[in-house]
């Protein structure tokens, strides 16, 4: 039950941050591919840098253990990414 409440709360903040960064809008998503609005990259990379430094500090302090890292299949990850980009530019997801 606690897990579900945590999941729901984190989800709300997740959705909130996506909305405030403008990632719920078609034009924001597609304009990053046209190099006219880099908000998506700025948002993603900021999140990445904050999360990776935070997590590695916490692991260094012995406070967290990492969950299983997404598996590496070079062809799968790359082909998946290629198809995903088409869908992303079309839908604005």
């Amino acid at each position: 039950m606690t897990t579900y409440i945590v999941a729901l709360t984190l989800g709300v903040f997740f959705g909130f941050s996506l909305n405030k960064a403008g990632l719920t809008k078609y034009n924001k998503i597609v304009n990053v591919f046209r190099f006219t609005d880099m908000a998506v990259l700025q948002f993603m990379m900021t999140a990445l840098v904050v999360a990776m430094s935070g997590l590695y500090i916490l692991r260094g302090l012995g406070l967290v253990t990492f969950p299983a890292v997404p598996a590496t299949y070079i062809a799968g990850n790359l082909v998946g990414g290629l198809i995903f980009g088409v869908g992303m530019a079309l839908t604005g997801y």
Partner: protein
Amino acid sequence: MKSIMNYIHKETWSPYVAGILLGIVGILAVWMSNALLGASGAFENIVGMIGKAVAPAAFNNLYFNFIMPPGITYGVILLVGVFFGGMVGAATSGTLIWGKKDAANSDEQWKRIFGPQVWKRWTIAFFGAILLEFAAGIAGGCTSGLAISGGMLLAPAAFLFIAGMFGSGILTALVIYRRSY
């Protein structure tokens, strides 16, 4: 305090501020529940649940038994939260246009490129979403589950995925926006 409230009511935040918020959410997900933030997996969990009830034979395969087990998973609950979080975000900036005219196709840029018809918006979104889900299934995650969550654990898969995503995204945008790229 007042300036914080004003900032919350702003429609678009600096992507850096919103990114810091998402980064903290990502840390908390790992720290509190040893889970990653994912969005696309939840749909597969739900489809697996429906599929197992409707056509058990067709869904009795490796993918739905082991890779994406059906059920109300952490990801499904998270996705419900994302939906409401997005609504809260829009509501605080006063842009929540649920049920109003043009709400189904409100993006000016989209209308300029594809036209104002709602059915077009929904058809392209539908087939684009099929591509997205399919690709996320192949790659093992989507922008949030693989690129951001995998990236923050420095998984090579995430960076391969980001490279593919931007490569083909740029090409698709080039094709759609031929003249006005």
